[in-house]
């Protein structure tokens, strides 16, 4: 019984997703409303003045859906609709699409003001150029 509980606990902890940012960012946490604004591409600069650069995986990537649902509490189609509205009205740009989690990690690490996401893992903090952005 204890083993089952332990396995359940571990598998729950191992799933999930975290927002990650470049260490240049002055903050460690963000409100859900501001985070939705950032991934909705409505926030062009962080309140501390750094330019926002958003990296995402393809719409149909499981890690993208996991982040949308688990962290933003939205669905991938809602973000895509928001980006399309910006593109076809000239009022914004869609995020930069990367092709793998490895590229996500690398691009966020080397770009000031960058934000992306990774599956939850103790390894996230091993790269000194990225940090987890907690949702308040």
């Amino acid at each position, binding site marked *: 019984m204890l083993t089952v509980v332990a396995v359940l606990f571990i598998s729950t902890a191992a799933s999930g997703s975290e927002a990650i940012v470049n260490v240049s960012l002055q903050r460690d946490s963000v*409100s*859900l*409303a*501001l985070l*939705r*604004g950032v991934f909705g591409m*409505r*926030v*062009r*600069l*962080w*309140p501390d*003045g*750094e*330019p*926002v*650069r958003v990296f995402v995986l*393809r719409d*149909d990537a499981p890690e993208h859906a996991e982040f949308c649902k688990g962290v*933003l*509490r*939205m*669905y991938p*189609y*809602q973000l895509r*609709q*928001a980006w*399309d*509205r910006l*593109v*076809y*009205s*000239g*009022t*914004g*740009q*869609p995020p*930069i699409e990367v092709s793998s989690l490895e590229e996500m990690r690398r691009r966020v690490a080397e*770009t*000031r*003001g960058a934000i992306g996401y990774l599956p939850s893992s103790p390894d996230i903090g091993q790269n000194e150029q990225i940090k987890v952005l907690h949702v308040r």
Partner: protein
Amino acid sequence: MFDKRHHPSVWLRSIICAVVLLSAPQRAEASDWQLHGFLSQGFTISDGNNVNGDSSDGGGSFDFREAAVNLSWRPSPRILLAGQVASVRRGKVNTDDVALDYLLADYQAYQGNLGRVGFRAGKLKLPFAFFNESRDAVHSRPGILMPQSIYLDNDGARAFGYFSGWGAAVYGDRYYGRHNLAFELLGLSEFAVEDEAEISILRRPASGRFKHERGLLLRILDDIDGGRWRLALSISDSLLSYSAGNAPPFDQSGDFVLQQAFASVQHNREHLSLTAEIVRRRIKLGDLISHPAVSSHTDQDSFGFYLQALYRLPSQSAIFLRYDERLREMQDRNGHRQAAASGLPRHYFFGRDVTLGGNMDLTKHLGLWLELHLVDGVLWVNPLDNPDYGNGQAERHWSLVTAMLSYRF
């Protein structure tokens, strides 16, 4: 190449030039430039009345094409410059000239933890209801043919400046608990209305010319829980002028007013989206006096709404069901009074459209759309594609099937 009748005022041009010159690139990256666009080809086959070309002559019509390319550049974090050119052919309603769709400079003046404020100037897309600013592309609007009640597709909306106009806007967001309240307030300057639109609006050729003098538009939008619920209110007030010829519909020149109010609500779940939008439009003719031969041109108080349920299926596809209703006179739902006054059949004064549609992404860039429309009434049947429209010959009950293949990048 561009539509030469759209004249931005000099100060708008100056603002755009100043912003471009002052926005020296800082930490520019390749990703600060973005190029997007689409190319769509439609097919329409119908019985009774024509839509998008000669769709009812048996073989259907391929006379519906839409293409646009847009370029945007972020020279510094606060500034965005963007422009789009579009070419649209819809039967005789829109010719396929290349036209400037939008061209703007956008400055985000303030960004804090609780919201933002910014300004835009140039040729701006008109942000009313849920879909007007993104209606160009089939994948960012509700179907091949939009709900005619709100979006006036088949009336030649593009030609009468319903898509975009020269002006300036202030916009902002305010985060408020579960709410993201967004507003846009837009002032529009003058532009000429194209010939195709005159016929669409009046249902007959005009002997004089229409011009949009100035307008004001406000939209307030509330995204609740990241868009699980979306509520919007949009209002607009435009002053138009008419320079009379010496024939119908109007005997003398004058100004008139178009006022519109829209309410929109949407509920989004993982697989299901429910959307409803409603509009009331008032045209006050003011000092415009109808020619004696035309008795039906009086003030108008028109009304429309639609309800749509969309269900997302696996593999990037969806189906939807929609009911759309548009009335020329709000107080004359079945057209009896207007029929008596004009001598036209009463089905000329309403349009009720039941639509079953679906779409599927074939690849990341290529999508296919398909719709069946069952229509009662001919209020939004366009006289340009239907030469017999003016003599009361348009059929009351009619249907159409339309398909569209669209490539986007």
